[in-house]
């Protein structure tokens, strides 16, 4: 039951996303193209953040002389 509600809520959010970005007007294969582009770009950004965030934070702390 909770899973059904969760699924309904998620599909409502997906519907809103389609409406707001005008993907609702496009054909299904175009939606797939756009969604894969978006997910790959977002995935790459998250991965880069994950790899480089510790170095950047150490550099900031070093600059503000919090840590030597």
């Amino acid at each position, binding site marked *: 039951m909770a899973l059904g509600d969760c699924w309904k809520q998620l599909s*409502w959010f997906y519907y*809103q996303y*389609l*409406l*707001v*970005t*005008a*993907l*609702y*007007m*496009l*054909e299904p294969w*175009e939606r797939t193209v*756009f969604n894969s582009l978006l997910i790959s770009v977002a995935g790459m950004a998250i991965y880069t953040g994950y790899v480089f965030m510790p170095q950047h934070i150490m550099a900031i702390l070093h600059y503000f002389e919090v840590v030597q």
Partner: protein
Amino acid sequence: MKKSSPQSGVHPRQNKQESFEQPPMYVAVMTYVGYGLVTLFGYFRDFLRAVGLEKCHVAQEREEQKDFTPLYQDFENFYTRNLYMRVRDNWNRPICSLPGPVFDLMERVSDDYNWTFRFTGKSIPNVINMGSYNYLGFAENNADFLKSVADRLQRYGAAVCSTRQETGNLSLHEELEQLVAEFLGVESSMTFGMGFATNSMNIPALVGKGCLIISDELNHTSLILGARLSGATIRVFKHNNMCSLEKMLKEAVCSGQPRTRRPWRKILIMVEGIYSMEGSVVRLPEIIALKEKYKAYLYLDEAHSIGAVGPTGRGVTELFNVNPGDVDVMMGTFTKSFGAAGGYIAGKKELVDYLRSQSHSAVYASAMSPAITEQIIRAIKCITGKDGSTEGIRRIRQLAENTRYFRARLKEMGFIIYGGDESPVVPLLLYMPAKVVAFAREMLARKIGVVVVGFPATPITEARARFCVSAAHTRDMLNQVLHHLNEVGDNLCLKFSRRKHPSRPDPCEETNS
């Protein structure tokens, strides 16, 4: 033949500013993002069509003619090909019944994303009609009401087969013109067979080179076409903005014609009674004051307001308690409130007599058909009460009440609505292109037919759904529509209004006088 008791409610009505509320910032941003995305995909699809990976459904030249001057420019119809075609199942829907308060639609499906349609053979019955210009409910097929129309059809046939100047001037036409002149409170009037042609063919007869036309920003295409055809200089003032109009009039009177500095032969101010896309009402008293001060003429197009506003349905002149003789040229159409077709121009006798011989429409266009003429005659007799019943005044009151109720409930629900409180045209702003399409489809699934309007007819960020309230709608129908609107508004997140509205007082306590 003048006004009945002066309305004590006129001055508060004049002071109420019409609201054109702005949506939150993210709405405008996402509208542009949406259009940008679909445009990018449009370029992509055009590329696929050019390369040959996709079948091209639009018109193309033959192979042998590809080296000639191009007949079909690829880019010109970019918008139609890539945006409109994807979603065009929401427009041009075929109707298979009378366009009354409820109607039947033919069901049609598309197998190739709206490039072609096929009918399934079934019809969708009893769809509530919120799109027809049926303000007083005269689009009806009640045999009793239409008896005189049927008699005329039997006696005179279906068409006149001639122009007014040759053998097409029936005594019916004279009777109609007499009635229209009395109805409006002017000296004389002339009727034409087509409403659009009334504007576009008569403005060239009234103004020419050396004259100045000052027209409102949001005027209808027929007015713009007539102005361009006339050859006069056209200047545009901001919508319903009296400061802009006054500045333009001052500048015109002081500087005269552009190079020679001679005074303008004529200055004509063109405005509409109710603007069909905004639902806003013209500020008639202020325009008349300006026109008297700067000695200009006024052309008032009452296509949507005649029969629909005013305590007895006589249009904006009655709404603002203004003498109809102050308006130089009163124009209107019979398509909206009278359930017929055609238009009229009314005013002083010299003006109308001049138009009878000089207007293109009078000389070349075929005269109005006898059955339609009789329909207008019976509609005017019904509205003014000349046929002895109170049906007309009942319909006018019903329309005013429906309009007030509908607008108040929509504002209370939190939608952004444009326009003045008396206008039966209610635009509901939707903004984003995908929401426009989803709205039309969802409302049809709930058996309500709405008209949605998008980019070329409205500014790009202000797509809207336009409701036309009718006197034939019962309170139940309006409640049903409002209930569904509420649900669809929640499902699609359309309630952008940030103003707080107190819940409405009982409409039975509000009175008109």
